């Protein structure tokens, strides 16, 4: 009796929400597995008559999509490296050191989070063009790493602050320099934080569209921009498009499932600690 009530009040509503959350994903996957002929036939059959990988094979053999995946991977890994390099020292300063302007600066970084991309994309385009960096990996990596920096610093300082300060003091008493302290004590302990921030940076860069569209797009074309090539004047190649969509979605989804606990804890941790 109690179980029946639980199923009615909890299991069923959860299932309904999950159906809403998953149907578009599943529909994308099912579409990508249909042969082209089945895609243009109405009425639509909910499940494919034949399952075929023809779209995925054509996508990787006949189009530039494999190169686009490579470009996205290079940009995302670059953004992760640069983002960690920039955010870790800053997070250490915010979490461990007291200095004039500490609060104002921390708020300032969060305010940067608020600027609309449209506010800076045009001058950024002009800037990159004048520096000759337009359509390079470097331009996109810089753009992605910088734009995600405020949140990366916020997330990271939560992790650094959670490392017991007694460890610093113990190391200092043992005669360690600040650098030794940073490398030998803090860095290993901050590894979970770096993984979480790294995954956040990777997903943000992998999924980003507007910078990738404006600052690159010809030589360096990431997957989100490349999807446009399946959208023709009069028709959209839904088979190829959804095949590309599933390939793009897989790594980000997998990483998200791994990192979700850390990201959520970071979000709420920052909210409570301010």
């Amino acid at each position, binding site marked *: 009796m109690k179980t029946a009530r639980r199923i009615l009040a909890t*299991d069923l509503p959860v299932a309904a929400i999950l159906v809403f959350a998953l149907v578009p994903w599943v529909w994308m996957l099912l579409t990508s597995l249909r042969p082209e002929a089945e895609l243009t036939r109405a009425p639509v059959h909910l499940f494919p008559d034949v399952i075929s990988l023809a779209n995925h094979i054509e996508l990787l053999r006949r189009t530039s999509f494999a190169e686009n995946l490579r470009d996205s991977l290079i940009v995302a890994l670059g953004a992760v490296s640069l983002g960690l390099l920039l955010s870790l*020292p800053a997070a250490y300063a915010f979490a461990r050191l007291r200095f004039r302007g500490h609060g104002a600066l921390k708020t300032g970084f969060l305010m940067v989070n*608020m600027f609309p991309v449209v506010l800076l994309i045009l001058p950024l385009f002009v800037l990159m063009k004048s520096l000759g960096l337009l359509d390079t990996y470097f331009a996109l990596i810089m753009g992605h790493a910088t734009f995600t920096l405020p949140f990366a610093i916020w997330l990271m300082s939560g992790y650094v602050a959670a490392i017991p300060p007694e460890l610093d003091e113990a190391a200092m008493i043992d005669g360690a320099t600040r650098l030794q302290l940073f490398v030998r004590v803090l860095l290993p302990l901050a590894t979970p934080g770096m993984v979480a921030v790294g995954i956040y940076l990777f997903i943000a860069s992998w999924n980003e569209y507007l910078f990738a569209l404006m600052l690159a797009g010809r030589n360096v074309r990431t997957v*989100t921009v490349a999807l446009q090539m399946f959208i023709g004047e009069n028709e959209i190649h839904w088979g190829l498009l959804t095949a590309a969509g599933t390939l793009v979605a897989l790594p*980000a989804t997998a990483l998200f499932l791994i990192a979700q606990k850390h990201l*959520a804890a970071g979000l709420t941790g920052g909210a409570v600690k301010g």
Partner: protein
Amino acid sequence: MHARSLPWLLLAPALLATGFLVLLPVADTLWLSLHDVILYRPRSQPFVGLGNYIALLDDADFWESLGHSLVWVVVAVGLQFSLGFTAALLLNRAFPWRGLARALVIVPWALPSVIIGLVWTWMLDFNLGLINTLGLRWGLLDAPVAWLAQPGTAMLAVILAVVWQGFPFFAITLLAGLQGIPKELYEAAEIDGASTFNSFRNVTLPSLAPVIATALLLRMIWVANSLDLILVMTGGGPGTATQTLPLYAFLKAWSGADYGHGSALAVVLAILLLGVVSTYAARANR
């Protein structure tokens, strides 16, 4: 190394990058917004003061896009929050497959906006879309609907897509917040004879308030600024039916090649957001 310069040394890379790639372009946009800048007329860029801003007052498209932005933010964030909060409360209860459900609920959040836009466009397709197919089969629709081609339904459709994208964010952050509420508070409420509703109102909501506030603020800023989903699904159309303020600014500057006007629009958006955020922060700190 002096202790006093250490923090600045550590912050320098982050500050430099932010200065060059965020603050400088923002200042540049402010500057551009005071000039008459047309892309294909690079030699003549006269200073017009607040001319671009004053022109906005008479620009019907501006007021329309502002109204769309308001609907977009309020309805989308409101629905994301309601659905996300419901999901969080449900996922906080005990049931056998809870771990799996918690993992799966975030799937939409992981997808790029561009793909979300395209998948929903496909689902809303007139002839071959899942929504029309099921709607007809279940008798909910009499005839297929061209969701994205009609002004009345296009806004609904893009909001549906952004609600799908954003509700997991609320579900996950609010769930983490719920898990942080000490069990003793609920036990005490139970001893005092509080009903489920009362302990929700007097324990859950107050404990969760800071998390709710931060999540709402972050999401609101994000939704207000986002334009890729709409750009992909409707491009602001049909006509200008789904053109929000950031999209209008982008299209004006980019397709219209009118940098001055577009910059002014972007600045107005930033000022409006700044106003909302500072009001919000002032209230939160009181």
